[in-house]
């Protein structure tokens, strides 16, 4: 038998992902021998410097973990502190927080669908090159993204690191008339997001399915944002407080991002595909119908089709934003008062990329003595590597350039957020054969 030669595929700087990561794949013939998603984004040590800060500072501090999803960090942060201090938020504040989150999902999903992921399917290096051939698509993308950003900046002063989120509520809540100003553009955007669904449903998808354990929040009456139990398709059904009993973080040498695993079963997936598969019946009719029109089966097991699911979640987010605005009545007070007490608080919310868990321990002065933050990309990291083990094997006979390109696309299925996870990507393909 002739000895198969070794081929290495490496991507030193993964593009169109948020943060710094590299990919390394070693192939012997058509056999995958090694896959490493190397996250070399420098650690910023948030969980360490949060110790000694006051709990009221949490939304401002943790926002800085990620420039794309600051609201996710703010929401998990404030809910965890409110859990610790026993603060019950006003129902109007709860609705406003959902609206705020809609803005971030829209901005983040529109960015990923059109500017980071669609170029892979259509063969462009970026959205700007794509705009030369598809100007209308890119202009529409920018307008959709802007509609999400408009919600955020109207409620929080700016798109990135908005300033209004506070423990107990908001520093300032919008007047009814201010939110009404958003309605016309959001109605346009809801229609446009249905077009987005048709656009992405028409792309070509590799034939690739995996037997995933999906994990997301679940709420009896709503598609999840800020509240619910943590469930999976394999029987997990726990309170957020039990998270650390069931999930463990592992430190591997090739990554500055910790790998989060289910203690009993290993890797799992969080994010749009997990949310969609576990909560399809909580989507409004318009989003369910859009999913059917796109030909999505439930559950959807092809990670490349996550681009369609993000488009469905865009439909949901615009619909939900319009619903909240139509029913909005300002709360009696912008926020509930904060009374410090020694306590521990937990929260998980659904960031655009998936479940985001926070835990804080506070002393009697409200000073943080311990913090734990588990971002979505940490949780997906092992699953991304496993996808690549299977997917790289499936396409191993193809030319090296194509393997590299398709493996990068497979990584982008997860919309990895490396800055978040570092506490992520270059492709490095080594090939024997």
């Amino acid at each position, binding site marked *: 038998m002739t000895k198969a030669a070794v081929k290495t595929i490496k991507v030193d700087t993964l*593009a169109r992902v*948020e943060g710094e990561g590299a990919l390394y794949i070693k192939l012997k013939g058509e056999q995958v021998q090694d896959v490493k998603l190397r996250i070399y984004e420098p650690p910023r*040590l948030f969980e360490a*410097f949060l110790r000694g800060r006051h709990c009221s500072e949490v939304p401002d*501090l943790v926002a800085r973990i990620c420039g794309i999803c600051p609201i996710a960090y703010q929401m998990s942060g404030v809910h965890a502190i409110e859990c610790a201090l026993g603060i019950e938020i006003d129902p109007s504040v709860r609705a406003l927080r959902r609206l705020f989150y809609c803005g971030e999902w829209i901005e983040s999903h529109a960015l990923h669908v059109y500017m980071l992921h669609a170029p892979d399917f259509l063969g462009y290096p970026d959205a*700007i*090159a794509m705009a030369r051939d598809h100007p209308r698509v890119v202009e529409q993308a920018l307008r959709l993204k802007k509609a999400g950003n408009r919600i955020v900046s109207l409620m929080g002063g700016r798109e990135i*690191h908005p300033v209004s989120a506070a423990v107990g509520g908001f520093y300032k809540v919008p007047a009814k008339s201010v939110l009404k100003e958003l309605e016309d553009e959001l109605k346009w955007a809801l229609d446009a997001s249905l077009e987005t669904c048709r656009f992405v449903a028409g792309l070509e998808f590799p034939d690739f399915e995996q037997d995933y354990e999906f994990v997301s929040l679940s709420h009896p009456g709503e598609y999840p944002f800020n509240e619910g139990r943590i469930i999976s398709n394999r029987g997990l059904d726990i309170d957020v407080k039990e998270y650390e009993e069931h999930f463990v973080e592992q*430190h591997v040498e090739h990554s500055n991002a910790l790998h989060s695993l289910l203690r009993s079963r290993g890797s799992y997936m969080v994010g749009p595909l997990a949310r969609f598969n576990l909560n399809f019946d909580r989507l409004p009719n318009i989003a369910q119908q859009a999913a059917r029109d796109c030909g999505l089966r439930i559950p959807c097991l092809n990670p490349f089709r996550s681009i369609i699911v993000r488009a469905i979640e865009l439909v949901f987010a615009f619909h939900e934003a319009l619903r909240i605005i139509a029913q909005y009545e300002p709360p009696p007070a912008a926020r509930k008062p904060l009374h410090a007490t020694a306590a521990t608080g937990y929260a998980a919310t659904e960031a655009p990329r998936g479940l985001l868990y926070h835990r804080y321990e506070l002393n009697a002065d409200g000073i943080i003595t311990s913090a734990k933050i588990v971002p979505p990309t940490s949780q997906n990291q092992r699953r991304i590597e496993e996808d690549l083990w299977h997917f790289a094997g499936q396409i191993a006979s193809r030319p090296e350039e194509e393997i590299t390109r398709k493996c990068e696309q497979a990584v982008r299925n997860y919309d990895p957020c490396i800055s978040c996870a570092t506490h992520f990507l270059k492709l490095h393909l080594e090939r024997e054969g």
Partner: protein
Amino acid sequence: MSSKLKHKPRIGVFKFASCDGCQLSLLDAEDELLAVAGAVDIAYFPEASSRMLKGPYDIALVEGSITTHHDAERIQEVRRQSKTLITIGACATAGGIQALRNWKDVDEFVRIVYATPKYIQTLKLSTPIAEHVTVNFELRGCPINKYQLVELIAATLAGRKPNVPTYSTCLECKRKGNVCIAVAQGVACLGPVTHAGCGALCPSYDRGCYGCYGPMESPNTESLSSQFRILGQDNEAITRAFRGFNAWAWQFRKASEESERA
């Protein structure tokens, strides 16, 4: 600059330790993005494009602080390749929130976060870009203001001085017609010592400025610390106030160390 250039000006966007928010500001300039992309050649911007061209670059936009040996070497190479180097945001300009390690034992910090500290390579200090190489312009803010970024790129290409004022947030707040929350409500506000640029957002949202644009040109931090004491803030709270996203900027550093000692 552009008048002398025969080619479209080449822009590179480089990331060091940061949250990506400042470079995202460029993609968030939805109305201007395609115009900017038409006027320049975005030669290196990994977050947005898999087309990554080698230097030299006419303008380097640098985000993030230096926290590893590798990055300390990489910034030297970015400087060698770039005609004009502009830092964008508090991390690149002042070391960022990750500079809070500068007052602590970084090894202990790593032990708090990571199970196997020996896998982690990081420097004891998080430092701004200007501590490593010559910087041509520092754009402040956590995050930067996207309109200031577009203005700065346009000014650099035209070879003129950018219209980026260095006065305090207070001035922006007064111009906006806000009632002073420090005076009227007794809220501790860093506005008097903080560099303008955000449009006085926090006071407009019923809260005190938390200094995310860093120190203004000549801040009187001592006077503001006294005022904070009058408002009932203790030394720990004052130390924390100056020890935020621009903690390592020397004016804020001095103020936080003074209140820490007091």
